[in-house]
């Protein structure tokens, strides 16, 4: 356990230092890609809460990123501040997520995936066809970057810090949440809903809550995504994005706190790193993900987890053996 804690602490410190110092040496392109990673991480953290902790399969996370992005774009292009857009997006996604949670009370697993898949398609159609609101297929251009605490976050470097700061706040919030009774209730829901119910956990409320909070984080990611790209149209928010987010959560390690960060890094950064192979980069990327899933269906962190568990088991059995040996000596 102590090794695990040490490793976590070391990784965390290194990661934070890197994210704070490295941008000063990064090109605009690298800044943009890492900002995109931060935004996708937030959306994946949301899905990890719904899927990884509460065990509810959702293929609609991409739509919530879209709802957030459109809320942000529509409000900020009409002169309203990003903070207001954030509040509206969170409330909106919470409400829609809550409503989407109702089918989850009746159906599970594949069936739930189908329900959310339908919702995902519906969301795309609304973005595309409700032109009076979303400008349809033409999209919304010149989404402004925000003014925060009196600083205009127009430059790539400043907006990078907006993304990273948002990720930090979300991370802290979720870290707190999963250690609260709520988080434990979510896990209980995933592991054994009937037992959870018999222990007095209101599974109905927590299922809806898992959807609503996870969706909220999708919305938060969307509100930041719009000014990052400075343009939105319906095309990024199709089922593709939902599947990509699902992949991030699973590849990173579903139900692990650090899973979404790693998963998003693989989905966003790895293809960019592999670009030097030109025509082959998507092939290599796909092969990597497939092999990883074969080796470790529980994702990247699953490998680490297995290693640490095996190690502590070995240690424990060694200790047991030593103990019994010492008992043996006495007799």
């Amino acid at each position, binding site marked *: 356990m102590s090794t695990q804690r040490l490793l976590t602490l070391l990784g965390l410190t290194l990661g934070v230092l890197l994210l704070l110092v490295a941008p000063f040496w990064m*090109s*605009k*392109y690298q800044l*943009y*890609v890492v900002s*995109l990673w931060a935004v996708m991480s937030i959306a994946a953290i949301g899905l990890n809460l719904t899927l990884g902790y509460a065990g509810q399969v959702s293929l609609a996370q991409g739509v919530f990123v879209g709802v957030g992005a459109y809320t942000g774009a529509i409000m900020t292009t009409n002169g309203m501040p990003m903070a207001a857009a954030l509040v509206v997006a969170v409330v909106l996604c919470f409400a829609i997520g809550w409503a989407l949670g109702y089918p989850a009370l009746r159906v599970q697993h594949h069936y739930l995936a189908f329900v959310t898949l339908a919702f995902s398609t519906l969301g795309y159609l609304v973005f*595309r066809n409700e032109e009076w609101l979303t400008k*349809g*297929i*033409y*999209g919304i*251009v*010149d989404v402004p970057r925000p003014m925060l605490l009196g600083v205009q976050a127009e430059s*790539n470097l400043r907006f990078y810090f907006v993304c990273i700061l948002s990720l930090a706040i979300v991370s802290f919030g979720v870290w707190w949440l999963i250690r609260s009774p709520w988080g434990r209730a979510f896990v209980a829901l995933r592991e054994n809903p009937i037992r959870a119910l018999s222990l007095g956990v209101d599974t109905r409320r927590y299922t809806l809550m898992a959807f609503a909070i996870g969706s909220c984080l999708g919305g938060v990611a969307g509100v930041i*995504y719009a000014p990052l*790209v*400075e*343009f939105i*149209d319906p*095309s*990024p928010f199709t089922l593709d994005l939902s599947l990509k987010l699902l992949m991030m959560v699973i590849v990173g390690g579903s139900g692990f706190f650090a899973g979404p960060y790693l998963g998003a890094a693989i989905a966003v950064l790895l293809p*960019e790193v592999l*670009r030097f192979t*030109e*025509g082959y*980069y*998507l092939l290599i990327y796909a092969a990597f993900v497939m092999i990883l899933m074969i080796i470790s269906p529980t994702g990247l962190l699953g490998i680490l987890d297995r290693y640490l568990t095996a190690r502590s088991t070995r240690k424990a059995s060694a200790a047991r053996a030593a103990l019994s040996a010492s008992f043996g000596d006495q007799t």
Partner: protein
Amino acid sequence: MSITRKVSRLAVLTLAAGFMAAPVLAQPIHLEDVAELSGGGATVGTNFKNGADLAIAEINAKGGILGHKIEITHADSQSNPGVARALVQKALDNNPYVLLGPGYSGSVKVTESLAAKAGIANIMGGEAAELTQTGNEYVFRTSFGQQSTMPKVARYIAEEIKAKTVAVVWVNNDFGKGGRDVINAEFAKRGIKVVADLSTEAGQVDFAADVLKVKNAAPDAVFVYLNEDESARALKELKRQGVTVPLIGETTLTGQKVIDLAGGAAEGALAHVGLTTDAPIPAVQEFRKNFAAKYNYVPDHNGIKGYLAIYVIKAVTEKMGKVDPANFAKTLHGMTIRAKDEPGILMDVTYDEHGDIDRQGFLVEVKDGKQVVKTILPKMVP
């Protein structure tokens, strides 16, 4: 691997890197291309890329532009505006002479302002009308924008076909919607009634319901504005349900790929085409032959776009007499490039102050499984 082998390998690598970085006499001209090499726009981007590569190989074989060889980097936008933005940023970080692409109008909307901010000319493939209407001084087309093609199609439908009513079948993406909005406005101006306005999906397989609506509306003509694969499926269904009124399209409807896929169903279809590899112009035929020899397939208009983009760069640079990225855009505005001076440009072309082009167009009809040019629509300004 032993330490000595490691060290020796490192030494070789360092030496090689040193040689590569060694200054050459004439610095090559560096171009960056961001294209749709995967995802929904893969045919668009791949054709554009191959066309550009072909032109570069030709020019480099003849000694380059003003003695400078051309080098190009292609990057894949995955047909996603968010990724396109990242790659255009990366391309601009590398200080290219000119930025090429993307081909999707949505992606161009994201990237054109970045190129403008960097002061780099951007020669792109998008056809949506508004791309050149934002006052951006650095963006240039390679083909007609919809605002210049659609009026010609509407005029043909009104004056030649003498249709009073028309059905419009379009694909609901930025390409299809853009064209539909422009042509419907033109129809309204000419008093032609749109009796069926049918939005279809990209990748749609079954057109039975849409064609049935066309049939029930009984129009004098049908304007079909879809991507290649869908055009073929729609043509087949129109034939199957016995729609016999004239079918008119723009660029895509009569492409060779559509004719091949649709079999006999494309027979008699008409279209306005800005760039076609079937144009009865020797230079275009020569291009088509060379392209097919190099890549083993017949390019569509996107292949010509990529090819022309490179020859535009050549013509502008030779006019300036030096490699001058700062004055590139200024020089290209209002410039006319003639095929007799620069054969690679294939057809005379004039750029206006918005970066829109004026070039001759074609009215084609499908006969015996081939595009046949019916009328050549001359340049507005000779």
